[in-house]
C-alpha cells in the first residue's frame, strides 16, 4: 500500500531535547486517526514536521509513494497537506470572508492577477459563501477577524484550512477554546468531511476523539507508546494510567 501518508523513523531534536523519537506511522487514505498524549508530548511538533514547518533531524515522509521530506511548507500544501493551528493563526486585519477567499484564490492560482476584482469570480464566491454558511459564519462575514471572540476565530481557522481542499488534514486541537455550544459545529464539520480525505486530529477532549476517530495513536515523550482502535486504547493499561493517574485506578 502506497496510498496516503507513510512516516518512517521520524526524529527531531531541539538542541539536546529530543521531541520526536523514531516515529513510524501510516495514515492511509480516508483514515480518521487521532493523536493523543500529555502536554509537551510532541504532538504539535510532529504535525509541524509533516506539514514542513519544521525540518526533521532524520527520517522520511512519503505521500502516495512520493518522498516529500525535502519539500518546503508551501509545496506540501500544494501537494495536499494542510493543518489547523493550535494557536489560531489567521489574517487578523482581514475580514472573515477575505480569510476564506484568499486561500481559495491561492489554491486556484489566481493571486498573480492584477486587473480583475478579488471578489469577481462567481464560482469562487459561491464556494466562499458555502463555507461561511457551514460554519455559521455568515453573520460575521464582514467583521475583521481580530474583532471576533476566540471561539469564533477557531471556526474561521477550520473553515480557512478546509478551503484549501486538502487530502491530508491535520487538526491541532480544533475544539480548544470553542464554547461547548459551538463545539458541535466542529464535530459536524469533521464528520461531514469527504471520505477520500485523511484526517489526523490532535485532541485532549476524549469525547471528541472517540466520536470521530477510528484509530488512536498515543504519543509520550516524542515516541509512539501504543496505536490501536478506540476500544484497544481504552482498554490499554498504560494509557489508562497515563490519563486516569495512579489514584483513579
Amino acid at each position: 500500500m502506497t496510498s496516503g501518508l507513510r512516516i518512517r523513523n521520524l526524529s527531531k531534536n531541539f538542541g539536546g531535547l529530543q521531541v520526536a523519537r523514531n516515529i513510524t506511522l501510516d495514515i492511509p487514505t480516508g483514515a480518521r486517526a487521532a493523536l493523543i498524549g500529555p502536554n509537551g508530548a510532541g504532538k504539535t511538533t510532529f504535525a509541524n514536521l509533516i506539514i514542513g514547518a519544521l525540518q526533521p533531524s532524520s527520517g522520511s515522509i512519503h505521500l502516495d509513494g512520493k518522498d516529500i521530506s525535502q519539500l518546503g511548507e508551501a509545496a506540501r500544501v500544494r501537494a495536499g497537506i494542510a493543518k489547523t493551528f493550535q494557536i489560531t493563526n489567521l489574517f487578523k486585519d482581514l475580514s472573515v470572508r477575505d480569510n476564506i477567499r484568499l486561500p481559495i484564490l491561492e489554491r486556484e492560482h489566481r493571486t498573480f492577477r492584477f486587473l480583475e476584482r478579488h471578489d469577481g469570480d462567481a464560482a469562487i464566491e459561491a464556494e466562499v459563501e458555502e463555507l461561511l454558511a457551514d460554519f455559521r459564519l455568515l453573520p460575521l462575514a464582514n467583521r475583521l477577524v481580530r474583532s471576533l471572540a476566540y471561539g469564533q476565530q477557531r471556526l474561521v481557522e477550520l473553515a480557512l484550512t478546509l478551503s484549501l481542499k486538502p487530502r491530508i488534514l491535520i487538526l491541532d486541537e480544533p475544539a480548544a477554546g470553542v464554547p461547548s455550544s459551538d463545539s458541535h459545529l466542529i464535530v459536524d464539520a469533521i464528520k461531514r468531511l469527504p471520505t477520500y480525505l485523511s484526517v489526523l486530529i490532535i485532541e485532549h477532549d476524549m469525547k471528541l476523539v472517540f466520536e470521530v476517530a477510528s484509530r488512536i495513536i498515543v504519543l509520550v515523550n516524542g515516541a509512539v507508546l501504543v496505536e490501536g482502535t478506540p476500544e484497544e486504547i481504552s482498554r490499554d493499561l498504560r494509557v489508562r494510567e497515563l490519563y486516569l493517574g495512579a489514584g483513579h485506578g
Partner: protein
Amino acid sequence: MIRISTIDIVRTSLGGTGKLLPVAILITCAFAAFWLFPYDLGFLTQMLIMMVFVVSFDLILGYAGVATLGHAAMYGCGAYAAGLFAIHASPDPLLGLAVGAVIGALIAFFSGLLLMRAHGLSLLMLSIAITMVLQEIASKARDVTGGADGLTGISMTPILGVFEFDFIGKTAFWYAFSVLFIILVVLRVLVASPFGLALRGIKDSPSRMRAIGTPVYWRKVTAYVIGGTIAGIAGALSAQITSLVSVEAFNFALSADVMVMLILGGAGRLYGALIGTLVFMTVRHVAASIDPFNWLFVIGFMLLAVVFFLPDGLISLPRRVAGMIGARK
C-alpha cells in the same frame, strides 16, 4: 471594533455614486488649490510629485508590510534616467516618464531579489546601503551625472506636443496632477485585485501565507517592482519639472520622510498617503518660513501624537471623532 475607512462608510451610504466620491474630491481639491494659491504652484507641484512617491511606498509598506528605508533608490535612478534621456536622447516628457518607470522597475527588481529575502533590521540596513551605493556612484560619475553639482541642462518639449511648460508652472501642475491621478486609478484597481488581497495577507501573516501554500517571496518582489516603477516615475517627474537632478535625490532623509508622511497619513489605504504628504509638506513649508531651525519640532510632535492616538493615521481621524461623539451619547 470594526475597522472600515471613513471613505468606505461614506461610499456605502452613497451607494453606487460613492465610488466616484474620492475622485470628485481629488479633482475639486486640485482646482481649488490651483485657483487659491496661484503664486505657490511650484510648491504645490512638488507636493503632487511627492504624493506619487509616497503612494508608491504605500504599496510596499502599507499593503505588503515590507518596511524599507531606501525607497529613494528608485526615485533617484528614475530622476537621473529621465534627466539623461532628455539631454541625450529625446526631450519628450512622456517618453522620459516611461524611461524613469523602466529604470525604477529594474533597480527595484535587482535590489528586490536581495532585499525581499531579508527581514526587520537587516532589511532596513540593506535598503539604506543600496541607496548609499547608488548615491556614491551618482556623485563619482561626474562626466555623466554632473557629480555633486547635479545634472543640469534638462529642457522638455511640450507634453503631447501641445502643452508647453510655462514659467509660472501651470502646465507642470496639471502634468503632475494627471500623472498622480492615473497612478491612483491604477493602484486602486491593483489593491482590489486578487494580488492586492494576497499582499494584505502577506502583511498580516507571512506564516499563514506559507501554510496556505503561498511562497511569499515572488509576490513581495513583484510588489517591490511595481512600487519601484512608480517611484521611478516620481523621480522622472521631478527631473523634468525642476530641470535639475542632484545627488540629494538619493538622500537618506528623503526615504525617511516618505515613511513619516505615509505613517502620518495612514498606511495601507492609498488616500492616507496623500493626506500625510499634504500635511507634512504644508507644515514644513509654513513652519520653516516662521522658524527655519525648529520646524522639525512640529513634525516630531505631530508624528508622536499620531502614533499614540491615531495608529491608523490622520485618515482615520474623522471616524475616530465620530466614534467618540457616538460613544458620548
